[in-house]
């Protein structure tokens, strides 16, 4: 059944269109920056964006920071929201269940397909933005543009808010947010870590949307419902008055992937981020299962 869901995923035009759109945003941003040479000043704007003019190889990190807050969760919510509700409204759900496909099996296969989609999207963004960074922004142009070397990012303490930036040591090696240089191997390792963390960060949304998808036969309703939950979460994360519930919000640790670019890696928030997503997945998958397994399929 999982193979069948993956086949359906890759054979759907929508999958590739949404991945294309997700990849297009960083490309557009890169073109603007390359043409104008106006990157946001350090500490402002999207994470890593201030550094990419100097270091094109950092562009994957900047690109991930660009798609994380809206594009990626919207695409994941649409996919997951459609997964059961879409089949219910098109009538294919009843044929799958009468085939028979176990209801639990179907839910798991749907979740696997959504996760696969998130992985595909994150990998596609990373690969295309690396190419974009190298080709459009160019590798290590620090000397050429004459930025003051080093130090610009050292001011950010681990766990502090705000958009961090990465800087450059004089010479070539890319520096971590903590100011110490990273080898190419370390950089690859950390980008992979960040990709994994961002993918996992999407699991909470996916589980919420999947749950809503079993409640309604409207795919769009399920997608919008889960996005509403995310917007509420993002608002509460910035609200001091809501500090009591903040540790439990699904988006609270979304930015923790930036900690992969510190030296050494600052694990606390990363671990909490993984943990909170695991909790959301368990809770909402259980709810989705409890609802779906006992529901009358009347469409």
């Amino acid at each position, binding site marked *: 059944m999982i193979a069948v869901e993956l086949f359906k995923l890759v054979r759907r035009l929508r999958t590739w269109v949404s991945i294309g759109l997700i990849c297009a945003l960083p490309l557009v941003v890169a073109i603007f920056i390359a043409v104008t040479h106006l990157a946001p000043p350090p500490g402002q704007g999207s994470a890593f964006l201030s550094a990419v003019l100097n270091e094109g190889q950092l562009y994957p990190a900047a690109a991930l920071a660009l798609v994380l807050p809206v594009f990626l969760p919207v695409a994941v919510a649409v996919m997951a929201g459609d997964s059961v509700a879409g089949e219910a409204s098109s009538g294919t759900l009843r044929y799958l269940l009468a085939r028979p496909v176990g209801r639990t099996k179907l839910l798991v296969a749907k979740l696997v397909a959504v996760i696969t989609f998130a992985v595909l999207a994150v990998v596609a963004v990373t690969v295309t933005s690396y190419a974009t960074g190298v080709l459009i922004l160019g590798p290590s142009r620090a000397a050429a543009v004459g930025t003051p070397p080093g130090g610009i990012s050292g001011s950010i303490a681990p766990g502090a808010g705000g958009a961090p930036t990465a800087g450059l040591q004089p010479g070539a090696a890319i520096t971590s947010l903590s100011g110490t240089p990273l080898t190419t191997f370390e950089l690859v390792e950390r980008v992979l870590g960040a990709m994994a963390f961002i993918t996992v960060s999407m699991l909470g949304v996916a589980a919420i949307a999947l749950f809503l998808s079993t409640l309604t036969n409207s795919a769009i309703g399920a997608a919008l419902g889960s996005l509403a939950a995310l917007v509420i979460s993002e608002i509460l994360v910035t609200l001091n008055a809501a500090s009591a519930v903040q540790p439990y919000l699904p988006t609270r640790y979304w930015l923790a992937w930036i900690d992969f670019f510190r030296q050494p890696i600052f694990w606390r928030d990363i671990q909490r981020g993984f943990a909170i997503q695991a909790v959301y997945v368990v809770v909402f998958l259980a709810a989705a299962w409890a609802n779906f397994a006992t529901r009358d399929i*009347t469409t």
Partner: protein
Amino acid sequence: MITTQNLTKRFGHVEAVREVSLDVREGDRYGLLGPNGSGKTTLVRMLLGLVYATSGSISVLGEPIPRRVSRVLPEIGALIEEPAAYPHLSGRANLRLLDAAGPHGSRRTRRRRVDEALEQVGLAGIDRRPVRAYSLGMRQRLGLAAALVRRPQLLILDEPTNGLDPRGIRDIRDLLIGLNDSGVTVFLSSHLLPEVSALCTRIGVLDAGKLVLQEQLASLQEPTGRVLVSTDDPERAVATLDGLVEHRDGADLVVRSPDPAALNARLVEAGVPVRSLSVQRRSLEEIVLEVTGAGSDQFGAVTPGGATPRNPPAHGGAPRPPIPPAPPAETP
């Protein structure tokens, strides 16, 4: 093959299916009839484990449903209301996908089974066009093919000839009769009486969720003990038959007589010019209308209690022909 006992399904306050005890035997071509909204689809969905019964029990192929759906459903081909397919994939790809999704669909034989099923329903020549581009009739045939891919021993088909043209309807009827001859039990629901009449050996009639009739079609359509006579001299015929004429409508007479040959001889002897003479059998329409109330989708037909009021018996209703059920004493 299918037995249900006092099967009841309530959706909120609406009782969609009430105390239905269905009995479909091996080798049957069983037609479940009933007006729209009488609970046919809900009943079919319960047999397939899609809708859970409020009370009562279901057994299909000797196994309890929904507990053993994973054992039973691979042996069943089903069409549930309209067919459904992924519109961006071809018909072949859809059938292969559905076959791969569940158990008992051997990958080795998949290609051959899919091609055979498509041939059976008359879609052997389909190309790689996506289902999006199919006509209504092609979709219906594809839905039937999907039910046949695993060569099931039992077919559960909800409105199988929906959307087909007359030729398509006959093709499918011939296909189902052929499959039945080779041992497949066919259970279908329909509100098209001529279709069921031409296809089924046994019928059940649902009315407002209740099974009001379940019988072999042949025994329902036994001669009624009356003969329909058409003559140019009805006066003399009435005089000759002396009290055996139950009903007269111009030149057409309904005569109570168990033996049409003797009746014919008697009329000819008396010099009555007989134009036609035939044994009266009840049509399926008469049988069904007699046991059902107003259609459940008829507005205003439902009383506040939720029950559908029954029409008066058939011979009381003006538009219906005056045909009472066969009196058992008069069969020769």
